[in-house]
């Protein structure tokens, strides 16, 4: 099948297949998927192969990596196994990243869709709210929220989600506004479709491309956000996460660089994979702008 130049007239199936092909040809996207899968394996399958409790004190504190087989990547300031921390810390980090990402995307799409579709007073009102959340520095507000209520991973996810949605909302709004005046939307309206149906069945699927790309970035940002909160000591202290490890190891950084470097590297890899996937998707949906 010949490659079709992406135009504004969008149909149902083939662009998806086209996108998939373009994605597979993008080295960024493929690399991203590979890394992401590796991280997921490490996090979710790892515990079965290495069932050491990250909270358990296994050896002398601040042991260097590769010094003892009991703790191959060394121990932290209490004598806990760093490798165990890495393996078990991933699930909390990923959970918060995905949960916060989900909240962000949901609120963002809802707000943006209504604003972009209905315009007028609805738009004005929703935009004021969006502005309010955009003006508050996200981390500061999240810190306040987390300390006002007890910092469990649910509260943390919620706090991150609630300060991050404005960007998604704006993007969605722009897309909805652009698409709503197109031919096929008018066509749907003339057939008598209700607003709801038009919004969710007609417009949204066509706005999906940039939203999906944005979603991958959002998740990456949420993960960094969680790491930041844990680093500051405001994360859930009963749950092991990579950010928590960095925060705990920070005071011992000169004696035990590994307790900070390894978890940081894991966060980096995870966020990187999401960024790369986002890149790949971007290429897939916009082949014109591919610069490889």
């Amino acid at each position, binding site marked *: 099948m010949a490659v079709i130049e992406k135009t504004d007239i969008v149909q149902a199936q083939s662009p998806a297949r086209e996108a998939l092909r373009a994605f597979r040809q993008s080295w960024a996207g493929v690399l991203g998927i590979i890394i992401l899968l590796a991280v997921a394996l490490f996090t979710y399958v790892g515990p079965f192969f290495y069932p050491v409790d990250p*909270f*358990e004190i296994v050896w002398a504190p*601040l042991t260097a990596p590769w010094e003892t087989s009991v703790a191959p990547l060394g121990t932290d300031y*209490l004598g806990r196994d760093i490798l165990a921390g890495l393996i078990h810390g991933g699930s909390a980090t990923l959970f918060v990243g995905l949960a916060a990402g989900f909240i962000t995307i949901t609120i963002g799409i809802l707000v943006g869709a209504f604003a972009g579709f209905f315009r007028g007073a609805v738009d004005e009102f929703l935009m004021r709210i969006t502005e309010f959340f955009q003006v508050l520095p996200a981390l500061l507000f999240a810190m306040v929220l987390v*300390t006002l209520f007890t910092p469990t991973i649910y509260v943390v996810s919620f706090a991150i989600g609630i300060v991050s949605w404005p960007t998604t909302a704006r993007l969605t709004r722009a897309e909805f506004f652009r698409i709503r005046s197109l031919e096929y939307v008018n066509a749907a309206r003339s057939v008598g479709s209700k607003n709801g149906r038009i919004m969710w069945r007609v417009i949204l699927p066509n706005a999906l491309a940039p939203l999906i790309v944005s979603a991958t970035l959002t998740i990456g940002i949420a993960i960094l956000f969680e790491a930041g909160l844990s680093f500051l000591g405001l994360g859930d202290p*009963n749950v092991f996460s990579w950010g928590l490890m960095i925060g*705990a190891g920070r*005071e*011992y950084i*000169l004696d035990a660089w590994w307790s900070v470097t390894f978890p940081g590297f894991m966060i980096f890899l995870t966020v990187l994979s999401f960024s790369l996937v986002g890149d790949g998707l971007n290429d897939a949906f916009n082949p014109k702008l591919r610069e490889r």
Partner: protein
Amino acid sequence: MKKFGIMVAAAAVIVAAGSSATVQAEEGKSGGTLVIGSTQKARHLNPAVQSGIATAVPGTQIFATPLRFDANWKPQPYLAESWSVSDDGKSITLNLRKNAKFHDGKPITSEDVAFSLQTVKDNHPFKSMFAPVTGVDTPDAHTAVINFDKPHPAAFLAMSSALLPIIPKHVYGDGQDAKTHPANSAPVGSGPFKFSEFKPGEYIILEKNPDYFIEDRPYLDKIIIKNYKDPTSLALAVDKGEVTMYPFLATTKDIARLKKSDHLVVTDKGYEAVGPVNWLEFNTTNQYLKDKRVRQAIAYAIDRNFIVNALHGGQSKAATGPIVPGSPFYAADAEKYELDLDKANALLDEAGFPRGDNDMRFKLKIDYIPNAAELQKGVAEYLKPQLKKVGIDVELRAAPDFPTWAKRVGGHDFDMSMDIVFNWGDPVIGVHRTYLCDNIKKGVIWSNTQSYCNKEVDALLAEAGSELDQSKRIALYNKAQEIIVDDAPITYINLLPYHTAYSKDVGNPPLTIWGTMAPMDEVFLK
């Protein structure tokens, strides 16, 4: 019959005709800036209305107290050049120096002493310090007579360090609440150093008081107290020479590392009066912890050696009772609760808590002060696997910040909690509050949050608190400690490994029992 204790007798009448009653020996030279590093942020600079180290260190430079103490628990003249105690022990007469002036030039009189004592009594959280005071008479400008309703030997220590700063009546007597008085951030003081600048959370700059009442002192031109975010950066700073002195150094890795330095001295002297204890306190109203055997079992299950040597790298020392070993009142013979898992298990069985599913007897929540990793969180986290060995399922409950923790424990909403509590010199000041029946006050942190009540202990403490004879006091406190340790409302873990790291260039380092919470007018730079 006169019954004067050693402390009082030694201090009866000492002449201080304008020359310094030196507590150190070296001959100093003038000049220089001493930079002290701290991780504690001072809220303001008036210790009369605020307890704690952060206010005490600058506060004791800015404000003078009637007495000061040397390295051997002996009181020395300071603002009071001499003093005497009445025969019945119910009043202390202070004879103040005649040449002492506040930093704004006005003379320091007995009116200021009376005013300061009343301010401390009304505002300072340590109620037991001056509770027996009924009033202060001021027969003349340089004589103050403090009257008590019973003998109060703790008064001497309470009149030193940061506990009774003499504040100017003409500044604070304007009707504003002393706790929020604007002068607290820019004080007019009475001590060797004047206030120069205070940037909250960043630094405090103090300058030499040229009209200090001890001639040729202080030696230093300036003292700067610099705030650091965490112990690591502060340790680095003192190693690099950015900071001249790092008191209250407690992180064991840094202690070990700084000890290796060839231009620093690292000492554990200077903390005898502070008496800092790291302990695990039990809420005796809890269904499991109300049985003494359960508490004792937990005490036997804790391996203090591991904590001291493995967790703290050998830098701290085990604590065994309410009073620290450095104090004259320490009871060396009380039960030490050496590690004995069998005994612990036996006691728990005896108390009627057999092992159930997954080998556990019951569950307990443990709280701890946040941001004190090695001492609090580390030990709490260690207790989880350790107490599992005797069948107690420990759940850690972290507080996001200090006020949350304080509210939980103060509100008796806890099972057991790690805590750090200071002796503050005389047991009356810092120790009684933890064990007295009438100090079970819901809502107040560092009161008797354990709801512990033993009438015999109460009687002993009350008697010891008003006994002027030192040896009798010691005997009374020994007995009290034995009972308390046996009742185990608290199990004591370790003494905080407070050290001071300072440059070899510092002469006459502040190493009296109060350490840096005492005037540094004798300190100089070589």
